């Protein structure tokens, strides 16, 4: 019964989304208020039915309803309940349902928060989102129905891929999808602006908070994915330039360019057509990512589902969305005005340079990701494009962008004389140079010291930006500090925090790449090994039985200079349903370093191959990403976006509270 009900809900949602798309767009075009009025209730209804379908599928997983194919394939009676819930999006079908649910969430959020905007504009935005939703609901119903029955029902499920049985994997996909799908809002705003010919600063201001929130989720999603790879895959890496990682990184790069370009469009009215183009591309890259991951054209760590029919559907959808929007762009963009003037060195031109570099970086990552597929398809040979390529290409492109990132926030709009900038930034430059010198002196390579230079440069320029504001304040040091938070608007704080986060991130990457130490040793209980000043003593190793796996757990005592630091419990597991072995590394997290212990093969008796690693500053990588995301949150909740709403009645207030929670 659950299956049929869920299936039915999806069909209703598809009908509603079609009505939402067609009626709202046609109504806006012809000025029919009654048709436009359909958009909001349709978006609400669509959300309701998709949410019911999602809840039903979740219930089926929790109750082990193995008469549903996806449940039988991705769950098991032994699977702990939280992972049964996570298993909903562990399957291809379920993850697409999650995608559609996210789209519906964004749709209803737009419907709720955009009451103040002109009705035809909102109708167009919701109309575009309705069409997108119908595309994806069609994809679900025609190629990936999560409610397909398995009759007779299986007695036992095949279990969730053990790699996914992890708290990180429980939150990674929803975050990532919130980001991916969130760009659909920026896209819908851009298309609505093109359709209405209203491509101005107001449009940029409306779409800015949405874009920033989507970017924030995407940043978090990618960071959590990387963190998961670090502790779950067992080899201590955090980014491999895997095609699936790139698929999430591409929209991030374009989205980053977009939020910067939107700033110029909002404040100065310039770069309008470029901003629209970026909005189209940010979402197109989200779709492309979905295509790459879901069609099975890649073979990689993350690609779990394959079926050519799906690939063709998404490709056709992708072509329709990208082609349609670019055609519309070609027709409408030439009418767009220039916006405010600016000189060669100004905040505008610096942001333009940032956009050029980010766009080229995104294009390069795309090239590297698709090139092997292309060669293979043309039968020109099989090649691998891996980290050495991406590092060789990406780093030189990003280094100047990072340098400009330090200058941009201090540069004025319209005109920013270089001597003035140089004078204000001289301390940051000195700090960066000194840090690089220290790095060189302590044996860091040139490249590594350059990384330190950039990290300290970015971090100290953001501090300069804050300090410049405190200089005019009166009063004691403490009182000045207390007033600091109110000195700048939240948008500014958000920007500075995100930039500081980039500095923290670069520092972490540089440190761990340069100074990490690792050692493969043969250990049995009682053995001690030393690495990086730490002494690792294996106390014992023994078997135990987990809920759905057999485990082997070691107890490793860590000490430094004779003082005990911590005890770690690295494990090996054999998941019984699929017979799949897993390594659960023991990790001791610290502010300045992680200790990472993973157990390998048994080499006779009680002895095991053990890999010990000391990873300096590795957590700064995710800390930096977290700061970036927090910066995004601050910027999106700037008063400029809120006061406008506060003019509205209390209803809007309540909606705002709900928005802050989401």
């Amino acid at each position, binding site marked *: 019964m659950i299956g049929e009900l869920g299936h039915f809900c999806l069909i209703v949602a598809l009908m509603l989304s079609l009505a939402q798309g067609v009626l709202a767009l046609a109504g806006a075009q012809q000025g029919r208020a009654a048709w436009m009025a359909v958009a909001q209730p349709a978006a609400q209804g669509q959300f309701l039915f998709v949410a019911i379908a999602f809840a039903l599928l979740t219930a089926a997983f929790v109750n082990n309803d193995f008469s549903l194919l996806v449940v039988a394939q991705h769950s098991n009676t032994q699977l702990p309940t939280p992972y049964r819930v996570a298993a909903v999006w562990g399957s291809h079908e379920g993850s697409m349902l999650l995608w559609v649910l996210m789209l519906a969430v964004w749709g209803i959020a737009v419907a709720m928060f955009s009451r103040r905007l002109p009705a035809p504009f909102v109708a167009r935005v919701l109309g575009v989102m309705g069409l997108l939703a119908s595309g994806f609901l069609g994809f679900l119903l025609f190629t990936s129905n999560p409610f397909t029955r398995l009759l007779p029902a299986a007695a036992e499920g095949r279990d969730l891929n053990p790699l996914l049985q992890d708290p990180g994997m429980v939150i990674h996909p929803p975050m990532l999808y919130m980001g991916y799908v969130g760009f659909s809002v920026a896209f819908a705003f851009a298309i609505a602006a093109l359709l209405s010919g209203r491509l101005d600063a107001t449009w940029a201001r409306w779409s800015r908070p949405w874009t920033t929130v989507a970017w924030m989720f995407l940043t978090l999603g990618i960071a959590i994915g990387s963190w998961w790879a670090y502790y779950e895959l067992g*080899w201590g890496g955090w980014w491999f330039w895997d095609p699936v990682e790139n698929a999430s990184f591409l929209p991030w790069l374009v989205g980053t360019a977009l939020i910067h370009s939107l700033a110029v469009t909002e404040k100065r009215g310039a770069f309008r057509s470029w901003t629209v183009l970026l909005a189209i591309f940010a979402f197109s890259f989200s779709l492309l990512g979905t295509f790459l991951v879901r069609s099975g054209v890649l073979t990689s760590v993350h690609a779990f589902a394959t079926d050519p029919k799906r690939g063709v559907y998404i490709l056709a959808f992708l072509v329709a969305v990208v082609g349609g929007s670019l055609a519309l762009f070609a027709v409408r963009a030439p009418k767009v005005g220039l916006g405010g003037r600016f000189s060669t060195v100004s905040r505008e031109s610096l942001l333009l340079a940032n956009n*050029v570099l980010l766009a080229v970086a995104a294009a390069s990552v795309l090239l*590297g990701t698709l*090139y092997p597929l292309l060669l293979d398809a043309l039968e020109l040979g099989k*090649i691998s494009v*891996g980290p050495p390529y991406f590092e060789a290409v990406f780093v030189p492109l990003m280094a100047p962008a990072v340098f400009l990132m330090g200058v941009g926030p201090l540069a004025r709009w319209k005109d920013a004389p270089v001597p003035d900038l140089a004078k204000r930034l001289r301390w940051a430059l000195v*700090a960066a140079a000194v840090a690089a010198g220290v790095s060189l002196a302590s044996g860091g390579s040139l490249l590594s010291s350059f990384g330190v230079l950039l990290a300290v440069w970015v971090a100290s320029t953001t501090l300069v930006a804050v300090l410049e504001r405190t200089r005019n304040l009166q009063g004691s040091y403490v009182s000045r500090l207390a007033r600091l938070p109110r000195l700048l608007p939240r948008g500014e704080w958000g920007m500075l925090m995100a930039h500081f986060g980039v500095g923290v991130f670069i520092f972490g990457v540089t440190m761990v790449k340069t100074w990490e130490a690792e050692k493969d040793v043969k250990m049995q209980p*009682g*053995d001690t090994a030393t690495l990086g000043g730490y002494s690792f003593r294996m106390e014992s190793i023994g078997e135990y039985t987990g809920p759905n796996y057999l485990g082997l757990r070691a107890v490793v005592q860590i000490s430094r200079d004779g003082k005990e630091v911590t005890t770690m419990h690295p494990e090996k597991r054999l998941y019984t349903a699929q017979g799949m072995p897993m390594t659960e590394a023991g990790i001791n997290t610290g502010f300045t370093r992680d200790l990472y212990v993973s157990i390998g093969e048994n080499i006779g008796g009680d002895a095991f191959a053990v890999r010990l690693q000391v990873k300096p500053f590795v957590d700064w990588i995710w800390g930096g990403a977290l700061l970036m995301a927090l910066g995004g949150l601050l910027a999106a909740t700037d008063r400029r976006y809120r006061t406008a709403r506060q003019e509205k009645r209390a209803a809007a207030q309540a909606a705002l509270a709900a928005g802050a929670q989401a």
Partner: protein
Amino acid sequence: MKQLQSLIAALVIAAAGTAGAQAPTQAAPQAAPQEAPTIADDPVLEQRVNKIGEELRCLVCQNQTITDSHAGLAVDLKNQIREQLQAGRSEKQIIEFMVERYGDFVLYRPPMKATTLLLWAGPFVLLGIAIAGAAVVLRRRRALAAGATPLTEAQRRKAAQLLQDEPETRS
């Protein structure tokens, strides 16, 4: 500037701290109970093996380097690299040997050849095009902006009045 300087100092100290923590392990030979033997007989050689292995794909894994993988093939190939290094062959010779055996697919750093020209040159060509494009756009903007005739006094007054009538558009 004080705060800034102390923060920088903190960063510098932190950087130096890691460098210090990194001092090679043989510096601590205190009466340790027997040190667990490394799997590799020769850690220096092993570092070279791992460095080469990082450039090579483990062909039976999904997407992992030979260094990172524990798969049978990866272990075999690491042994192969080790033996060849011991036999005095250079890094380049070993990589050539791997390519001969497994094709270009084994290389994570694609070789430069006719079919990969676009791959290697692409990003830099794109950068050139993008910079040229941005320059052209900027020049055209300036030309358009300069070409626009300045407003007459009457127009200016009209514009000011219009702006006052519509207070919304500015942030």
